[in-house]
């Protein structure tokens, strides 16, 4: 394999980019280095924004052949592509032509199509969580019972009817939220942070290469 194709090059780039951020934070290297670090963050965001069409291309690779070959459910793919094109064209940042995020058609579609759809998609999860809980929350063991009781008490604490029936649900719910829940979340945060640090060190030293895989290798 040619030297420039070797995976060690992106690993070195990863390590250099990480050090550009880490060193000025933990050591005093002067204002010019700190300025460079801040500019670099902004610059790499421009590089990252270059990937903006990657997801769209992947989606279109799936849907355009479906429309062209009239495969089952091609009508929905047409709706998807049409909506994508309309949103993109009216949202293009060419203010001289009246296009962009302030364009009235773009604002209309954002307010009356995207916002209701995304809000409803999030809210519908309530039903699936409830049905999943109904199936999963069975008091088969002491652990499962604790899970069931804690969940029910928090529901009673947050739903107005719970505290209206007995104000004690509020006190118990607060205790559950502030003591066992906070302790669990804190332990998970500490464990996650340790894991993230280890993963970072492994990526910088080239032991972790999973993110570079693909392309048939």
């Amino acid at each position, binding site marked *: 394999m040619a030297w420039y194709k070797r995976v060690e090059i992106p690993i070195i780039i990863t390590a250099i980019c990480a050090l550009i951020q880490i060193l000025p934070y933990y050591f005093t290297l002067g204002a010019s280095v700190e300025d460079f670090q801040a500019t670099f963050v902004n610059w790499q965001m421009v590089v990252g924004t270059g990937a903006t069409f990657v997801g769209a291309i992947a989606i279109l690779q799936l849907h355009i052949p479906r429309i062209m070959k009239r495969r089952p459910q091609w009508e*929905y793919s047409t709706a998807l592509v049409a909506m994508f094109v309309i949103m993109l064209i009216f949202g293009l940042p060419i203010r001289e032509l009246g296009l962009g995020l302030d364009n009235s058609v773009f604002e209309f579609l954002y307010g009356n199509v995207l916002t209701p759809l995304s809000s409803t998609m999030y809210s519908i999860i309530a039903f699936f969580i409830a049905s999943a809980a109904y199936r999963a929350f069975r008091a088969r063991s002491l652990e499962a019972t604790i899970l069931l009781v804690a969940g029910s008490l928090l529901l009673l604490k947050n739903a107005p009817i719970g505290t209206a029936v007995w104000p004690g649900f509020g006190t118990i719910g607060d205790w559950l939220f502030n003591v066992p829940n906070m302790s669990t979340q804190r332990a998970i945060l500490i464990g996650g942070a340790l894991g993230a640090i280890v993963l970072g060190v492994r990526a910088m030293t080239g032991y972790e290469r999973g993110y570079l895989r693909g392309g048939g290798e």
Partner: protein
Amino acid sequence: MSDFTTYFGAFLGVLFTLAVYSFLYRENPWSRLAEHMFIGSAIGYGIAYDLDWMRSQWEGRWSLTSTGVTAFAFALLLGLLWYFRFSRKYFWLYRIPLAIITGTGLGLAFRTVVFAQLLTQVKATAGIQLVGVDAWTAFNNLLSAVMVVCVLLYFTFTVRQTHPVWKPINVFARYTMMAGFGAAYGYTILTRMSLYIGRCQFLLGVPPYAPENKTFFPWIALLILVTLIGYDLYVKSRASAKT
């Protein structure tokens, strides 16, 4: 806003809200249409937003100096390398912008994770207040610290947990986590329910939502219901005709 725009906007909002909820019955053409419209509009919005950000960056920062122009052009060039993801032969070029983004992300995470997630949490656990507070608060503070330590020990896999002292620690950690997850679940479900209540208020035109929604709600609900029943009968008749 003109009357037509207001009414048409309310019509679309109610239609897509009910189309998504129709999925609760079963997957159907309305829910599929809503899903596809959501994906299409979300991608279009995301790209438009990114391009707008790029233009504002160019105008407000990079176009001001010649070094900035060169750096911006170089960034755009590197940004184009993302598209070699779709090429098997030149896939190695895709790894360059990926390495830049991953490396910078790692570096930034090293700055925030160490302090916000690790040191602050360890400090909060270790610095428990037992004096100068009432007995109940002191008990809760102590209990909280013990719970954090036990849960952390539960996930210590580098030591073989064969000594009898591990058993009560692990049992207590499991009970703590179950109570914690139960509480988190209860909190999450109520958050989702409040979102659902928000959508109901939208359909009923409760302020600040447009009052026109209330006009369309029963008619569109009826339309979706009738077409759902019709679609079901059509699918069943086709299935029985095949057999």
